[in-house]
């Protein structure tokens, strides 16, 4: 089984966001970048599938600047076989532009399965995975929490509001991973050492023109200062009064 996992380098979720001097992007100074948390579930699932079948290859694909190599190496340290960096210094905000570049790379690879994280925790678009599925005309299921494959077919579950959808599909397919699909492994020291020697191909890519531009990136308005109504259970009646008569929410 040949599996591609598309990943993105994003700021760690504990990052405090600062707006950069251009007013349209973040100030990257002091920011720790990591493999997108949802992509970790995709990498883990690919590794599990390869281990179960006892053969195959897991290829990590990422689009971005040179620093993306570090992110790819993280996934290689988890156990993936090789990486491809689709190199561009542009940081498109239009998901279609990214999806076209990834679809073109994936199409050439002859993969049985293409996995993504369900969304990147920077621009939160949750769009690129299903878009790649549509662009390639492949079966695709997004935000999956359960996956079973057998005989060229698969069954996946995805969470919807208050329920779970069960989807059957044929391979090859594009799937995006939701938290809960598995428990991602940590790269072991040996994996980190091995990852340094694994093949990582860098290809320059050209992007299409985007259908949208960032006008401004701003921090949200800070909330109006609240108050501590009291200490311990004796404060409960004061809280009830405030919620009922002041905030009018109960």
């Amino acid at each position: 089984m040949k599996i591609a996992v598309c990943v993105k380098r994003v700021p760690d979720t504990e990052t405090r966001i600062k707006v950069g001097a251009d007013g349209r992007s973040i100030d990257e100074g002091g920011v720790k970048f990591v493999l997108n948390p949802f992509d970790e579930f995709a990498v883990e699932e690919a590794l599990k599938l390869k281990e179960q079948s006892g053969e195959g290859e897991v290829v990590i694909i990422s689009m971005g600047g040179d620093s993306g190599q570090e992110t790819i190496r993280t996934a290689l340290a988890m156990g993936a076989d090789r990486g491809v960096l689709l190199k561009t210094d542009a940081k498109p905000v239009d998901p279609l532009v990214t999806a076209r570049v990834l679809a073109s790379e994936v199409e050439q690879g002859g993969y049985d399965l293409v996995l993504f994280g369900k969304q990147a925790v920077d621009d939160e678009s949750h769009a690129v995975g299903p878009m790649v599925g549509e662009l390639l005309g492949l079966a695709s299921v997004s935000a999956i929490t359960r996956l079973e494959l057998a005989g060229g077919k698969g069954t996946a579950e995805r969470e919807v509001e208050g329920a779970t959808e069960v989807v059957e599909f044929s391979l090859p397919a594009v799937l995006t991973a939701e938290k809960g699909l598995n428990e991602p492994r940590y790269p072991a020291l040996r994996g980190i050492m091995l990852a340094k020697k694994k093949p990582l191909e860098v290809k320059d890519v050209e992007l299409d023109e985007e259908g949208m531009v960032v006008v401004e990136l701003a921090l949200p308005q800070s909330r109006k200062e609240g108050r501590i109504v009291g200490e311990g259970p004796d404060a409960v009646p004061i809280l009830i009064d405030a919620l009922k008569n002041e905030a009018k929410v109960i």
Partner: protein
Amino acid sequence: MAGVLVVLEQRSGTLKSVSHEVLGAARTLADELGVEVHALAIGPAGLKVDGLGEYGADKVLCCRSDELELYQASRYAGLASGLADANGYQIVMLATTALGKDLGPRIAAKLGAPIAGDLTHISGNDGLVVMRPVFAGKATSTLKITSTPCVLSVRPNAFATGCVARDGIVEDVSPGDSGAGAQAVTIAVKEPEKAVLDVAEASIVVSGGRGLKEAEHFQLVEELASALGGAVGASRAVVDAGWRPHSEQVGQTGKTVSPNLYIAIGISGAIQHLAGMRTSKVIVAINRDQDAPIFKVADYGIVGDLFAVVPRLTEEIKKVRGG
């Protein structure tokens, strides 16, 4: 002039109220652009679409077939993009729900269109300008859409439902091919035995964190949520510890919520958690540490032992609500 196509959402033949919000947002935008709003309803034979004119739809395109009761991604996307192509809609709009997050990008890919999701603000007065939270709400991005057609998906609870009555003439649309041989088919929707109010849809959310000390103590959170008629939420720490399912997680790798009332119990307020709930209308925090960051975003706080405060609060809420 055909301007905006709103893709509605239904479950078991009844339209979801979030679709009314999308119609409201679409109506306002269409009036700014001087175009019409058409709604597309896809669902089972018994799907009810009456009265959508009151929410701002000029026309309702109705595609009914029992094969379309469950969300079938490729058929829904084919129907919506096919109509957008044929009728020349400039803008396709839908809600940022589980369905919308999957369907929007598919329609955009089929149309070769840009997509902007989870919008909290849309303006058509000076070109098409939209705002969306990024980094789970730690920042807001303002974007200018420079290409049409485009797909816009709007955040639930961010737009008011419209009240400008329009004709809302219903026109049937053929469901097209039967979907036989589709590469992916939704075969079932599993509902839990006891109906669960989703944390992202609830108007009141009660969330618990590590301060509860043990998974079993979440009963305190459940009882308060039940007394309030709200949903249960959880911090990342307790989801990662396996105390609660991921579907309840609020924050950057969970759900972003903006209920009328958010009560945080034993949650210190990690930055990734605050990002996911800071747009709640009223925030209450109960924590023993008065320096906990959660108090910085809370409107009302009680400092103290949650095991003493929460049962008392549940009791008082029951009295207020006549339970």
